């Protein structure tokens, strides 16, 4: 699949608490930008791949909003990985020649749910799923990581705070991000606890937002623009509910490892630490980002908390991670997030970031975007590049 499909246009709405916007408004905002970026109209789109997890009615919402009549609309709902999996399905669809040009669209209106955070119950065993929240579920990683690597509670929280500080600094430079606030380590440590060891600044926002990509076959891509971004590789992996898996150690996530290795292999990457120019990973919580570094082989096991202090993952570090602020600050409208992350790679790899201060320095070749879904049990990775081969 390497280099078979290319992204030729992208759009992203402003993320945040968009109280005065409907999901239709957000969709129109993202799609208007995306179509203009590709230089096409909606009549040039052969199919829609729609991603959303919290609005029922599936693709019909998007079709209605855009008056996108007469073409197939495929809905993808895979929790936080919805956007990535829709992107991957779209890439596969154009690569195998079923369609020439398709639109991938993710949209979510979480601020209409009435809850401040996300629950992760599925509803098939409601009594067992009572009181399950996303921070309560992901927070389980924290205590185990601290225990395993001998970090005192405060020491562990300080490492996590370093991620929050980094992502807030990056998000401050992202005009479309949900939060624009530079914070200090002390701010993070002194914030109210949400699900210990996670405090307020360890948790991403629940946001409204939409994002969109126009994908076509690589051999057609230059007819849209001079600088298409090529899909180099991807990987998707699901695990059965890890919470009940006696062999699961809460440090090594098989879905993370498998999805990243599959993507590296497809993209021909043998040393991600040297070859990945920047990454947008699933920092739903700071602790998630911490273990992703290690599961993605961005660093050795048990080293992430040390490398953070050296600025290894900062915007000017060895592997810049979440340079647009991540889920943490850009926001996390679930179905839109994977496409938003890819939007940042796309703009970074084209050297066309909306705020030049945020542009990662140096020659950028490959970017990795990633979402991690469920409580947590599925992972999707996409690697994009600005050169063929």
């Amino acid at each position, binding site marked *: 699949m390497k280099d078979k499909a290319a992204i030729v246009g992208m759009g992203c709405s402003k993320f945040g608490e968009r109280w005065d916007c409907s999901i239709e408004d957000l969709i129109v905002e993202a799609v208007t930008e995306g179509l203009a970026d590709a230089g096409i109209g909606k009549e040039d789109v052969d199919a829609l791949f729609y991603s959303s997890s919290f609005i029922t009615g599936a693709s019909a919402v998007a079709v209605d909003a855009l008056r996108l009549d007469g073409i197939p609309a495929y809905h993808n709902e895979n929790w936080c990985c919805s956007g990535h999996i829709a992107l991957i399905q779209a890439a596969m669809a154009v690569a195998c020649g079923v369609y020439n040009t398709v639109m991938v669209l993710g949209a979510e209106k979480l601020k209409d749910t009435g809850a401040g955070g996300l629950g992760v119950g599925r509803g098939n065993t*409601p009594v067992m799923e009572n009181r399950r*929240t996303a921070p309560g*579920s992901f927070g389980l990683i924290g205590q185990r990581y601290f225990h395993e690597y001998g970090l005192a509670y405060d020491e562990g929280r300080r490492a996590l705070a370093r991620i929050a500080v980094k992502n807030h600094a990056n998000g401050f430079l992202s005009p479309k991000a949900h939060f624009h606030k530079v914070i200090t380590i002390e701010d993070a440590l002194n914030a*109210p606890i*949400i*699900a210990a060891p996670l405090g307020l600044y360890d948790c991403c926002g629940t946001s409204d937002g939409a994002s969109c990509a126009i994908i076509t076959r690589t051999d057609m891509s230059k007819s849209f623009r001079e600088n298409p971004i090529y899909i180099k590789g991807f990987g998707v992996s699901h695990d059965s509910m890890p919470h009940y*898996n006696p062999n699961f150690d809460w440090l090594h996530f098989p879905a993370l490892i498998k999805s990243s290795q599959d993507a590296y292999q497809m993209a021909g990457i043998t040393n991600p630490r040297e070859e990945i120019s920047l990454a947008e990973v699933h920092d739903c919580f700071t602790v998630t980002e911490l273990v992703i570094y290690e599961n993605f082989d961005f660093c050795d096991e048990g080293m992430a908390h040390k490398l953070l202090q050296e600025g290894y993952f900062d915007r000017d570090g060895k592997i810049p991670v979440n340079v647009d602020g991540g889920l943490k600050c850009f926001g996390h409208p679930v179905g839109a997030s994977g496409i938003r992350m890819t939007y940042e790679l796309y703009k970074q790899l084209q050297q066309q970031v909306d705020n030049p201060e945020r542009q990662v320095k140096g020659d950028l070749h490959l970017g990795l975007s990633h979402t991690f879904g469920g409580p947590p049990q599925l992972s999707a990775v996409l690697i994009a590049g600005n050169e063929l081969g």
Partner: protein
Amino acid sequence: MKRVGIMAVGAYIPYFYISRDVIAKAWNKKGMKGVRSMMNSDEDSVTMAVEATRTCFRFVDKKDVTGVFFASSSAPYAEKSHAGIISAACDLARKIYTADVMGSLKGGTSAIKAAADAACVNPNEQSVIVASECRDTYPNSRKEQLLGDAAAAVVIGSENLIATIDEYVAVSDEIVDVWRNSCETFVNWGESRFIYEEGYTSSLTYAVNEILARTEMQPSDFAKVILPASDMREYLKLAERLGFSPDQIQDTLLLEVGDCGTAQALLLLVAALEKAKPGDRLLVANYANGADTMVLTVTEEITNIQKAPLVDTLLSRRREFKEYNRFLSFRKICPTVASVYNLKPSNAQTWREQDTFLRFKGSKCKKCGAEIFPANRVCHNCGAVDELERINLDERVVKIYTFTLDELAGSDDDPVVGQVCANDEYGVRYYNIMTDFDPSEVEVGMTLEFTFRKMNELGNFNNYYWKFRPVRIKEGGET
């Protein structure tokens, strides 16, 4: 009378207690002596009854149980079997007699008579009698300080008896003295001199004299008298009038637990048996619109149940609760905002999944022996399909593998939810909520046991499931 009696005992006293001073201070007045037990926000009379019943199975095999009697005046449902929920939660046989003895504070002793009669007729009858109570009364009333929440259980049968029931005298006296109308939340009491003179004292005096005459016994023949007490003094006056000395009267636990209504007579009986000697004669005299009295003789078998006196254990392993406002909200007298992180079940789901939700069964693969929770038709270890047998897991002891203290999931009055992943020694990984814990004491490796709790009332019915709690009942973490 055929030889029947008590085969086993069980009890449950909640983890929390609240000082009467704390309650009184909220109303700017002086408190009564002692503390009262209080249920947690996830408990009700059914969950406490399940906990008490489970402890009976330290001594009898649950497979042999033929009946469950549930006695309470504070049961959650006006219409629906509670004994059935208890029977399911304890995974008792389907062929079982269940009865709810509701509304009378002597329901527990009434049920003992019914079960003893049944065992007289059929020696195979082994009935659990569980009495459980969590009554509410008006805030700022004296009774608010005096009441307490607890449950107790006895198993009645005709084999391996720890105490025989030698005689039973029941009396019915109609009087409106203590009552609660069907739509009311709070218990009412009549004028105290009237209800103690014409109700409590009159009925018990008559019934006790009747049983003494029938058994040709003297007050001094009894090692202990189990006398219910809904007041600090009246029971002592009555005892004196009946000819019993104060040291013959079983400690009423009013200073540690409070007046736990229907559960009181059984709880005091269990406490008495846990300290009794072979040959001791016990007199139970229970009051409610009449009286139930019985004479028991403790047997040599009593030592079998005395290795770990449960009432003492429960009293020694609990924690003081210091917030009266939360005491009220836990009882929904002054409700606070509930957690939004709940999912509404359907009647069908709850019925279909009861092996998991109520019986807490996992599965064991018949091919490879791997055990897992929740049960899964496909073995996680060897992939065998439908090669599973259901196994009970509620008595397992586990150690925390990792945890979160989740303050998003909580309700306003109970904000910290312990989300825990834990392992048992058979390789099963669990993921449950923790209750009855001190957040400052939770750590990786901590030993936990399972407890039956109410999760919510969504769907307009009570949803029960199992939670972890730091080991309170099990000794040394043995399964």
